[in-house]
């Protein structure tokens, strides 16, 4: 009975969170907010919107997801193909990456900022992308690793017996076989990248303009929500709720896409 209640509490809380965000944000959400950048006096209740933050966040998340993919995919494949025979090393690396998983993003942010000051870099989209990449790579590698781990050993042996090199086995056999799992891992990391505020707080900066190059600072949705909410003016606060809806919808879409992918491809698995 008590157990059913706790289960209910969790469903209720999720409902409550989504309900609160949508009830507060929907009345304020309109086309203008989504499609314009802040104009003069925006932070005192003036005209404008959060397009700068929406685009900034998308650039940041897409950039860091791609960069992280370049790092993570080879690492995960290496872990599962080249290190297949070295169980101990494999497990140690897995453990190490798992431990990294939990390092808070604010530490990455602070670290990156120190490096930037040392080299005299200013806050920019590029710096943000690099920081977020560092932060999401362990998540992506472990996600891919979980998918690659399930591939039976016989498939590896079959590929070798046909004369494939490790490279061909990795990218033509393993990658294809684990595709749904890898796609889910990428989506999950994308969600992390777009939702995190603490790592971009010092590295990406904040601006009212849409960034035109990697060296310019960029606004991000989480920070836009955070800054607008700390304003004492009600109109500005309400726009934070609208921005929260945008962010929540993006996250929901990612979650639904991830489910759809794993549902669609789970039938084709070799068991």
């Amino acid at each position, binding site marked *: 009975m008590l157990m059913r209640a706790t*289960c209910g509490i969790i469903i209720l809380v999720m409902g409550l969170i989504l309900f609160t965000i949508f009830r507060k944000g929907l009345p304020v959400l309109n086309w203008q907010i989504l499609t314009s950048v802040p104009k003069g006096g925006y932070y005192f209740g003036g005209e404008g919107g959060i397009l700068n933050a929406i685009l900034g966040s998308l650039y940041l998340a897409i950039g860091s997801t791609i960069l992280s993919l370049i790092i993570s995919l080879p*690492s995960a494949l290496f872990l599962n193909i080249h290190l297949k025979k070295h169980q101990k090393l494999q497990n140690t690396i897995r453990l190490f990456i798992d431990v990294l998983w939990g390092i808070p993003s604010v*530490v990455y942010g602070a670290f990156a900022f120190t490096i930037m000051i040392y080299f005299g870099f200013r806050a920019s989209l590029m710096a943000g992308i690099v920081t977020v990449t560092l932060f999401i790579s362990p998540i992506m590698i472990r996600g891919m690793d979980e998918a690659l781990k399930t591939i039976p050993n016989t498939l590896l042996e079959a590929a070798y017996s046909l004369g494939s090199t490790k490279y061909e086995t990795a990218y033509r056999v393993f990658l294809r076989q684990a595709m749904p799992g890898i796609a889910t891992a990428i989506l999950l990391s994308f969600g992390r990248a777009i939702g995190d505020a603490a790592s971009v707080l010092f590295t990406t900066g904040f601006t009212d303009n849409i960034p035109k190059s990697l060296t310019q600072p960029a606004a991000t949705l989480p920070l836009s929500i955070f800054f607008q909410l700390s304003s004492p003016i009600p109109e500005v606060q309400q726009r934070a709720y609208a921005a929260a809806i945008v962010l929540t919808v993006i996250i929901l879409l990612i979650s639904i896409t991830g489910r759809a992918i794993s549902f669609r491809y789970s039938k084709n698995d070799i068991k």
Partner: protein
Amino acid sequence: MEFRRLNRKILDSYNTILMIVTLSFVLLTPIVMLVILGFKSATLLQEHSIFRLLFTSAWEPGKGNFGFLPFILGSISITVLSVLIAGPICLLTAFYLTQYAGVKLVRIMQPIIDILAGIPSVVYGVWGILVIVPFISDIIAPQFHVQTTGYTLITGSIVLAVMIIPFILNILIEIFRTIPIELTEATLSLGATRWEVIKHVLVRKAKPGIISAFGLGISRAFGETIAVLMVAGNVAKIPHGLFDPVYPLPALIANNYGEMMSIPLYDSALMMSALILFASILIFNFFSRVSIYRLERNL
């Protein structure tokens, strides 16, 4: 033909090198971070003794006083409370979902847990300000005859608890699923009730796993920044009750970074708080993960 074969081999070895480079990059980054953070905090440690830094509570960067105690206690209290709130809920739900619930409910709950895990912390912060803050200041606090703004230790703990529930729950469910079903079925066939199965088989078998799941939850809560920053009040004093504001370490870093350049040693002090966070989370994570690995291997 010969040329193609050679080509493939070259490609293969190039790729192996690339893979080793990327993997070492990922593995070396945290070590570099640790070294640089340590190096940066050394400046502060030369000026003040570590005991003075960790066990005094005067935080006046302008005067050169850096007492981390309020922040450390703030972090610990908010973390412990949130795990105390989340723990029982997670345990009971995990029991229910793995032992009692039908396939249908599990199928509904899984996406809900995933969505909760995916919601960005800033959205949790907004929700906390809209729902939990007024709930504490208008409904709960008057019951205890306390005047408060609602931005308190208990508010932060509740928001944090909601954030770590999906995280702990996922690990718990995974751990309970690794317990062989024959074991529970054998106990049931001896006439045990479901609850007895939970008490004598599940909990006993998965005990290290349960502790580790909470350990990981603790490190998650300890490092959470934005949501806590938004609802916990941020007053640099040692909290004496549930309705006092707290100022955890991550919030300290996030709030003051960028403006610390003008004051000497401030930069080093913030780096030291990042180091404290980093190190304590590494330790917690390490022991939790090791014991989960052991558990999975033994089953």
